[in-house]
């Protein structure tokens, strides 16, 4: 059962949940003394944006709930019943999708509105959700270091096959969560499932076309505006084009991202956010949608319009860009759109047969299996653009990158997606004249032969006709 507690100033919404009004809750969190039996989840609606978070967390623990799993929503400024109902329904859905947190996934942060220096002298620190890496899922052992590259504060370090994480440096911005190509980085307070559940509930409960605004956790106060509903995220820098485009794909009229302050993102993510928004707009435009459905400046200028009818199926998760775009395309019944992108994790890989030695290292390191290789009489490398997340590991690994053997462009192309997996490289493999075993790709043998030069022609001849085992015989 999910219990909703509201400060008495709020009108009781009809959200079909167990709603209780607790007088003075905003000012006295300890009024939250107990919960009815069977309560598994809790949502608290407050009307003060300066409520003491530290005291609230303490009061939640006192009644046996992990504050990271309690939905606390600021209802300040929400005047119409429909927005109130939808906001609470969204919070309930997100709270119910909370997966639970381990001790590693709780990070200390200064409590209340005090500086870090006030840790021991003012409010007790609060807990915020922090990421952890599921080593079973992580593909760092294949060479992936997408999270390490993306982290804006260097809290993640590459250790040649594994990633180590320093929670004391981490600011829990969530960028690693949306960057990981396989979903191995998990922050329990901002999971794909919970965000999708919240957005679906917001859209469903509002009943009319509505805009969804991702709001930075550090923003001073939610600006409630008619026609828009907020979804809090740790930092708007974590948003990808897929996240911005998901609400329209789920039936929302528009999406926006509200960063945390007038002076810009303190983590320096402003360029990242701008480029994500630009990509989302480019994708919409290419698909034939109104690009103004997405945009940071669209709050004032764009009145939400009803979207084409949305279809079902889960879309949030690693590699979600493909699912979101495919759904948006199907909603407007188009199958031929393409656009170049700035930063969205959608890649198209091309291999130059003149310089590629078919060593297959690109396919071996690919964390999503977008590049895949097989060996029969020929070495074949194929590529599925629907799986590529543009992590660039193939480029990092290619020994012939300086000669342009492999290139990657950030773009989406519905026609290429429709074609699916395609061969991008084929090279014959000569067999050993002695034992018949494959020697090496012919392009690789040619490359080595040319590097050896004419003075090593005997060595080259041996290399080209004998496998490693038979060369010494």
């Amino acid at each position, binding site marked *: 059962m999910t219990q909703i507690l509201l400060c008495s100033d709020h009108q009781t919404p009809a959200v079909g949940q167990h709603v209780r009004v607790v007088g003075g809750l905003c000012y006295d969190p300890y009024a939250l003394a107990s919960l009815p039996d069977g309560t598994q989840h809790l949502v608290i609606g407050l009307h003060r944006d300066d409520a003491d978070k530290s005291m609230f967390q303490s009061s939640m*623990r006192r009644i046996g709930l992990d504050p990271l799993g309690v939905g606390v929503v600021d209802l300040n400024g929400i005047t119409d019943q429909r927005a109130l109902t939808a906001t609470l329904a969204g919070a309930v859905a997100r709270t119910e999708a909370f997966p639970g947190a381990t*001790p590693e996934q*709780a990070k*200390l942060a200064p409590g209340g509105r005090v500086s870090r220096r006030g840790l021991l002298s003012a409010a007790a620190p609060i807990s915020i959700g922090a990421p952890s890496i599921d080593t079973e899922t992580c593909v760092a052992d294949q060479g992936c270091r997408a999270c390490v590259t993306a982290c804006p504060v260097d809290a993640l370090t590459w250790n040649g096959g594994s990633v180590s994480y320093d929670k004391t440096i981490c600011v829990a911005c969530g960028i690693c969560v949306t960057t990981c190509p396989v979903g191995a980085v998990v922050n329990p307070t901002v999971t794909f499932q919970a965000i999708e559940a919240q957005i679906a509930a917001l859209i469903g409960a509002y009943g009319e076309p509505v805009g969804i605004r991702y709001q930075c956790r550090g923003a001073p106060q939610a600006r409630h505006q008619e026609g828009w509903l907020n979804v809090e995220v740790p930092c708007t820098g974590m948003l990808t084009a897929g996240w911005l485009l998901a609400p329209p794909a789920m039936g929302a009229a528009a999406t926006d991202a509200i960063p945390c302050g007038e002076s810009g993102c303190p983590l320096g993510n402003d360029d990242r956010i701008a480029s994500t928004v630009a990509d989302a707009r480019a994708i919409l435009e290419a698909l034939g949608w109104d690009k103004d459905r997405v945009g940071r400046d669209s709050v004032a200028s764009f009145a939400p319009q009803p979207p084409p009818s949305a279809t079902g199926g889960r879309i949030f998760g690693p590699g979600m860009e493909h699912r979101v775009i495919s759904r948006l395309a199907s909603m407007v019944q188009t199958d031929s759109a393409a656009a170049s992108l700035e930063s969205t994790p959608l890649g198209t890989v091309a291999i130059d047969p003149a310089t590629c030695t078919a060593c297959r290292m690109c396919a071996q390191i690919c964390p999503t299996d977008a590049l895949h290789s097989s060996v029969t009489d020929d070495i074949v490398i194929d590529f599925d653009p629907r799986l590529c997340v543009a992590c660039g590991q193939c480029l990092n690994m290619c020994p012939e990158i300086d000669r342009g053997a492999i290139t990657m462009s950030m773009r989406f192309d519905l026609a290429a997606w429709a074609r699916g997996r395609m061969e991008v490289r084929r090279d014959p493999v000569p067999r050993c004249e002695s034992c018949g075993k494959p020697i090496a790709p012919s392009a690789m043998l040619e490359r080595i032969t040319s590097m050896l030069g004419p003075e090593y022609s005997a060595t080259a001849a041996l290399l080209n006709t004998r496998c490693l085992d038979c060369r010494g015989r």
Partner: protein
Amino acid sequence: MSASDLARLRQGAYRLIGAGFAPPQPDRSELIVGSIPVLADLGLFDYSFSLYLVDYARALAADDPGELAPAYMALFEVGAGGAACSPAESAWLAGPNSSEVAVILSDLRRSYLRYGLRPSDSRSESIDHATVEFDVMASLCGIEAEQRAAGRPVTRTVGHQIEFLDNHLGRWLPLLTKAVVRHNGHPTYTALALAAHALVIHDQELLALIDEQEPSSP
């Protein structure tokens, strides 16, 4: 809450966990369960490890004392080829060479002396037993609390705590916790291992923040 209260709270939490790793006795169980309200008055619920501590106390309170001793023995003391989850540092950090155990114990002895501590002669546990190591942390927190209350500098004591967690308790406790959870022997001891883990993880982070405010080393 004052900084001295926080040190007292941490002292109590370490003492509670240390007692949990000692062989079970009805009096001790009552003491552990009864200490939760005392810690609550010191601000226990301001900190995330409180949930795990309360879970442990609740599991302990619900236990039949007669069942706890065999569970303790099975998990921490006996088993084919040794304890399933030995609650001692050397069991996790030493290799097959027995001299490595000696190195660990000698290092611990030196650390305790440096901190001004000496294991009581009446204690039967080895100096690398979880009960002793948690008690060491409790003692260091107690010293810190007294120093703070008297307005004396605490940087050295905080430094000792950081060092002890980094070099000893924080290195092997995660391994023990994983083993206890995997073994799934008894709910009370699983709750104890999780509470111990949550406290140590939380404290490492808290001490790093305190150290940032009041650097323990030049």
